[in-house]
């Protein structure tokens, strides 16, 4: 048991472990996106999915092309774009709340008059 654990934990972390981790995070995001009604929960799910994509970019950069920086910069710009998207989406959600006094997706079609 001890030997097994030591051989399992020796060497660098395999690439598959990082990919599996971001896979779990991404599909947790997809489940939340499909199973919730509140717009804020949908936004939280989108953040989870974007974060999983960031991890993939960074890990591929580190493991396959460690002398380049493409994945690093993609993750950096993705973080900036996610921040922009969250700011605008939350402004829209607050506006919807002001008009409808809730933020459920099924009521959004009442916005058109």
């Amino acid at each position, binding site marked *: 048991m001890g030997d097994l654990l030591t051989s399992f934990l020796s060497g660098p*972390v395999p690439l598959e472990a990082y990919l599996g981790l971001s896979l779990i995070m991404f599909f947790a995001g997809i489940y939340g996106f499909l199973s919730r*009604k509140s717009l804020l929960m949908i936004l*939280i799910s989108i953040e989870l999915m974007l974060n999983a994509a960031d991890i993939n970019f960074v890990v591929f950069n580190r493991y396959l092309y*460690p002398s380049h920086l493409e994945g690093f910069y993609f993750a950096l710009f993705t973080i900036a774009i996610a921040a922009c998207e969250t700011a605008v989406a*939350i402004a829209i959600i607050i506006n919807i709340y002001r008009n409808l006094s809730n933020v459920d997706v099924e009521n959004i079609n009442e916005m058109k008059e």
Partner: protein
Amino acid sequence: MAEQIIFYILAAVIAIFSVLAVTSKHIIRSATYLLFVLLATAGLYLLLGYNYLFAVQIAVYAGGVMVLFIFAILLTNRPGDNLKQEYPAKRIVAGLTSIAGLAFCAHIIYYNVSKVYSTIAQSDLTPQQIGHTMLGTDKFQYLLPFEAISILLLACIIGAIMIARKR
């Protein structure tokens, strides 16, 4: 050895809290679990040796975006009411969709990824290298996307103020 142990602790934190974040009944708890996931992701970046990305993730995500989320939740949620979920049939369909996708992608990763990479060449990333890459105009340098992001941020500020202001 130590790297592996730290990785598996962070992986457990991310897996557990990302599932909890989308299944929790209260939205403020979901936001808190999302914060834990984002902090553990920052830890992964540190583990991979990208210190700058670690700082950006903490400052932008765990700082800025989470504050926005918590303000929005407190502004749009009456205290005491629980989150409405979709109908059970739709939730089962959502669960099946995500589990099927997870199994499919995990199969592909398990059987194919180990053929792609062989060794890990470690190379240190200096702040000079990051700065030259971000603000250069040659091949593999990123001044144009950097400026585009700055214009996008300005447009977002103006757009968010225009949308959310009182008329």
